[in-house]
């Protein structure tokens, strides 16, 4: 082994261990983010493994969207094991004395479900006894919101029940479930008596099974499937539920992991930049060593050893930090996880994070490292400002860059388990880094030109300081700007999603939607609405049907075909269809011709189909579809294709029939109204209608929006948390850059003092420098995120883009303040230096 190199590396490093440590700290935040998210994933998957049965609550669940037939029930009997059943649907529930109503998720349970895990209630005994006592369990959030207590009553359909318990936890469901609507659990019999099931609600019927360990559930499912043939039964086993869940967790952690990876890359960029400045400063030493006859291989080894040691130290510190952070991550996701996470030190995650950290920082450091060999021995006798990188051969430069990118992409594709994702990510990242670098160069040079005589000396000196040799201004602006970019894009996307669904609240904008209205109730509801000064904006009939044939083949034939590429969703879904003679404002015909009137269903019916279904089915104009309308087949032909603006809150339909066909079919109505006034008026209106017609469901659009906003904010919090690591990296890199230039800064400060600057002037100059740096970084990041936001708005949401300048402004201010804080911390160490040092300072 090369003894000389190791010894020299150590001797050379020991006097500056402190600053070397600082240089490598750039990757700490990135490695920490990576280790934390990898460990978190390991924890969640471990928990899923351990509690797989609780996720489903049974060994097997069989589901159907209509009541099980007597043949089904007979078949269930033959399967054996312990069994339970449930019906689940959404309906209005009237809560308490005041009669507040909410569209709620109701489930009626009969039997010992869940077989694994338990429904947690307060009092705890309620979960076990509600079926015997004929009482209800009600979700905690709605009880708190409406001020309800155990002992109060609720009304479901025509039936009143006492609340015997508050739902704290349902196995397999996260707290976020409540955002969709309050959960209410009642005995199944009650539902059957409530009269709700007959009146058009969409109901899921489930049968649950618990078997002995020995039973092969997969084989059982296979045989039942075969026997049942074309039926609509859906099967969920512990294994399939676990896989579904793991996939979601994988996707989530992969996404967050990528954001963490950005922090790591930025950190590595910072480290590379620090290594370069370090080497540049060492030029004279290197030249001297070369003069003394040290070979280029040996000098390279000396620095390589130092850099590897730095990378290892930084990555190690990051791993430790990551393990600590991981303890707190579950808090961010608590509401999305259906269980408490079992935490464990996942060595594989720690090692993976550590390894990736070291590898990535080394890969980035290769370029500055090999530039060591361009330092000529001549530099030992002639001091000059020498830039090693500029003397590297162009081809070497390019080669190393390409190799580095390939290694990083490879690492990422291992991490995300997808080469395409890695390539897309790297592509996006390279573009944004290049853009950021470009923008920061532009801003910096713009600023340089801006040294106007009109500004005070303090300002001009502050600006000039940004161009201090080896100051890394562009790299700093890039790393800090990237953090800003991530946060900016996230907040912009959230705003846009909200905008997209935040249908303006105006006089003619709908704020209450009723559906599941029976034919005989329709007139009364319209009358009630008008009596209460509400305006009826839309009143549409809805007929539900299923696809039975597509292009001459039955759905079963298509699904059995191994080469089938048509989405099962589009083939099997229940189509809710309306009929009318006119198009509405949200619809535009893109192909074919809209035919508004038809003559019964004896001839082929010309229908209009939404673009999305056309895509899913792979259908085209003129294709024939046969729909099964509650037992009656109706043959149709795609006469036109529509683009539908789903941004509107009123009911929209993928499939639209002309008038004159469906009128006699069994149907129900949906009614969209505008209630003048505020939330109270809307609630009163809703109560009045639900009291008169308990089966009718109501959607308060204000409340829905609130739920969506809450949900998005929770997701955003998680993403912002990860983006914060990039900001953190930026600040650390800034700290180390300041440390590198510390001597230079002290010299400048002392020199200014010697020339007669008072302390305040010296401080102000530095403050201006840091503030400018923060502003530049924010501007670069903000500018790019605005452009990104505009692109997203244009391509994705198809909206005009209005950025939320307030929230972006707050982020900008925060970043500038953080930069100032780091700067001020450093200034503390500079002031208080005696000016005399300037006289003794050696040439440097």
């Amino acid at each position, binding site marked *: 082994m090369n003894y000389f190199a190791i010894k020299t590396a150590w001797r050379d490093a020991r006097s500056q261990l402190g600053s070397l440590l600082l240089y490598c700290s750039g990757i700490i935040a990135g490695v920490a983010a990576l280790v934390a998210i990898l460990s978190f994933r390991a924890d969640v998957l471990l928990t899923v493994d351990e509690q797989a049965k609780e996720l489903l609550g049974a060994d097997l669940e069989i589901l159907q969207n209509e009541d099980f037939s007597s043949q089904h029930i007979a078949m269930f009997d033959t399967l054996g094991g312990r069994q339970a059943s449930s019906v689940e649907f959404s309906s209005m529930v009237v809560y308490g004395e005041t009669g507040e109503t909410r569209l709620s998720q109701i489930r009626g349970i009969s039997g010992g479900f869940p077989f694994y895990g338990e429904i947690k209630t307060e009092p705890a005994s309620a979960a076990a006894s509600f079926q015997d006592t004929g009482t209800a369990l009600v979700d905690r959030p709605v009880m708190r919101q409406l001020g309800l207590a155990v002992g109060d009553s609720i009304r479901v359909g025509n039936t009143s029940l006492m609340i015997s318990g508050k739902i704290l936890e349902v196995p397999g469901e996260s707290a976020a479930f409540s955002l969709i609507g309050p959960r209410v659990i009642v005995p199944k019999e009650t539902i059957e008596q409530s009269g709700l099931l007959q009146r058009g609600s969409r109901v899921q019927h489930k049968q649950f099974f618990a078997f002995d360990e020995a039973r092969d559930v997969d084989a059982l499912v296979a045989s039942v499937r075969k026997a049942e043939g074309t039926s609509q039964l859906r099967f969920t086993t512990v294994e399939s539920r676990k896989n579904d869940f793991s996939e979601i967790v994988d996707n989530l952690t992969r996404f967050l992991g990528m954001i963490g990876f950005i922090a790591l890359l930025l950190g590595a960029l910072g480290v590379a930049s620090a290594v370069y400045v370090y080497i540049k400063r060492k030029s004279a030493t290197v030249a001297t060593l070369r003069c003394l006859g040290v070979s280029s291989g040996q000098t390279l080894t000396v620095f390589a050893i130092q850099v590897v040691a730095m990378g290892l130290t930084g990555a190690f510190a990051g791993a430790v930090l990551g393990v600590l952070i991981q303890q707190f991550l579950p808090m961010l996701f608590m509401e999305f996880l259906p269980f408490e996470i079992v935490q464990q030190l996942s060595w594989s995650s720690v090692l993976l994070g550590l390894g990736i950290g070291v590898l990535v920082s080394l890969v980035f450091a290769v370029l500055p490292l090999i530039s060591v060999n361009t330092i000529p021995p001549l530099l030992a006798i002639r001091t000059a400002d020498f830039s090693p990188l500029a003397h590297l051969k162009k081809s070497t430069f390019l080669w190393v860059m390409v190799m580095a990118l390939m290694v990083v992409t490879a690492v990422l594709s291992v991490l995300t388990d997808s080469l395409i994702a890695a390539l897309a990510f790297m592509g996006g990242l390279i573009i944004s880094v290049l853009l950021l670098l470009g923008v920061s160069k532009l801003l910096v040079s713009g600023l340089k030109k801006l040294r106007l005589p009109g500004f005070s*000396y303090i300002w001009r000196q502050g600006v000039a300081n940004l161009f201090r*040799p080896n100051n890394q201004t562009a790299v700093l602006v890039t790393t800090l700007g990237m953090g800003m970019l991530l946060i900016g894009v996230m907040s912009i996307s959230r705003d846009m999603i909200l905008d997209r669904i935040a249908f303006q609240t105006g006089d003619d904008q709908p704020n209450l939607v009723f559906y599941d209205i029976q034919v005989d109730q329709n007139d009364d509801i319209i009358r009630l609405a008008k009596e209460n000064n509400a305006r009826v904006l839309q009143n549409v009939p809805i007929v539900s049907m299923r696809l039975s044939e597509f292009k001459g083949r039955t759905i079963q034939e298509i699904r059995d075909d191994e080469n089938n590429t048509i989405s099962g969703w589009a083939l099997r879904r229940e189509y809710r269809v309306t009929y009318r003679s006119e198009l509405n404002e949200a619809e535009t015909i893109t192909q074919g011709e809209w035919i508004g009137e038809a003559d019964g269903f004896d001839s082929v019916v010309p229908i209009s189909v939404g673009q999305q279904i056309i895509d899913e089915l792979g259908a085209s104009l003129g294709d024939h579809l046969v729909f099964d309308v509650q037992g009656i087949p109706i043959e149709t032909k795609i006469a036109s294709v529509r683009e539908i603006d789903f941004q509107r809150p009123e009911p929209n339909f993928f499939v639209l029939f002309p008038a004159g066909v469906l009128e006699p079919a069994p149907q129900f109505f949906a009614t969209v109204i505008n209630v003048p006034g505020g939330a109270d008026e809307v609630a009163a209106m809703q109560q009045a209608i639900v009291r008169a017609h308990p089966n009718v469901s109501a959607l308060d659009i204000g409340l829905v929006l609130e739920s969506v906003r809450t949900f998005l904010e929770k997701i955003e919090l998680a993403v912002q948390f990860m983006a914060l690591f990039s900001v953190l990296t930026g600040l650390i890199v800034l700290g180390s850059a300041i440390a590198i230039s510390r001597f230079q800064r002290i010299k400048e400060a002392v*020199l200014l003092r010697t020339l*007669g*600057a*008072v302390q305040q002037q010296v401080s102000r100059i530095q403050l201006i420098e840091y503030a400018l740096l923060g502003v530049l970084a924010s501007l670069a990041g903000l500018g790019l995120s605005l452009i990104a936001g505009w692109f997203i708005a244009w391509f994705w949401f198809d909206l005009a883009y209005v950025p939320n300048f307030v929230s972006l402004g707050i982020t900008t201010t925060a970043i500038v303040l953080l930069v100032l804080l780091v700067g001020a911390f450093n200034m503390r160490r500079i002031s208080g230096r005696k*000016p005399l040092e300037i*006289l003794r300072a050696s040439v440097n």
Partner: protein
Amino acid sequence: MDSNQQPVLRVTELTKTYTSGGTGLTVLDHVSFSIGAGVSCSIIGPSGSGKTTLLGLCAGLDLPSSGSVELSGHELGIKSEDELARIRNRHIGFVFQSFQLIPTLTAIENVMVPVELRGGAYEPVYNLAKQLLTEVGLSHRLDHYPTQLSGGEQQRVAIARAFINEPGILFADEPTGNLDTETGEQIEQILFDLNRKKGTTLVVVTHDNELAARCDRIIRLKAGRIQSDELTRETIPAETNEIPA
């Protein structure tokens, strides 16, 4: 002239002791002298004899262990750091061995700094700096950065900077120490020319005997004490240039 009556710099019983690790090192030991206006004085002595320390104390860059420094009528010992900075700004010019230009400013901007620190208006300062740079022969290098200038050129910029405030006294610590002989001689020439033209008092620390001989007066330091103090010319009024017996 009136100012000839009053010494620009009066140093009385100046002592500086550094304590490191319990042991005290007396670098300056009861040094006294005064220098009148317009006089050029060199301080010479072997390396480590305390020249730089003395210069630093005279310019208020450090505080003495005992004794006092009076500069242009200001008693330095009783001033705060910021008051000292203002005094340096108004009354003192500096030329350093290692030039000490601000790397982020161009030549002319470097020259302007002392006046700008006082809040001088841009235009007149710029013109003054330009004129000074012309006087030191750098009229064509105004917008160059220090790294783009040779050592001699950097030192010329530093000299222009030292004179821009028309200081009463100029301290130079081995101004030619980092330069080759020929360039050093040019710098000396510029320094003495400007000194004569502006009537500034000049204190030059050097170990170059030739440079010392060009001054009106030579103070020889050895181990922190004044070993000799002699006039090279007879024209200087004795009372403001007391030579201790």
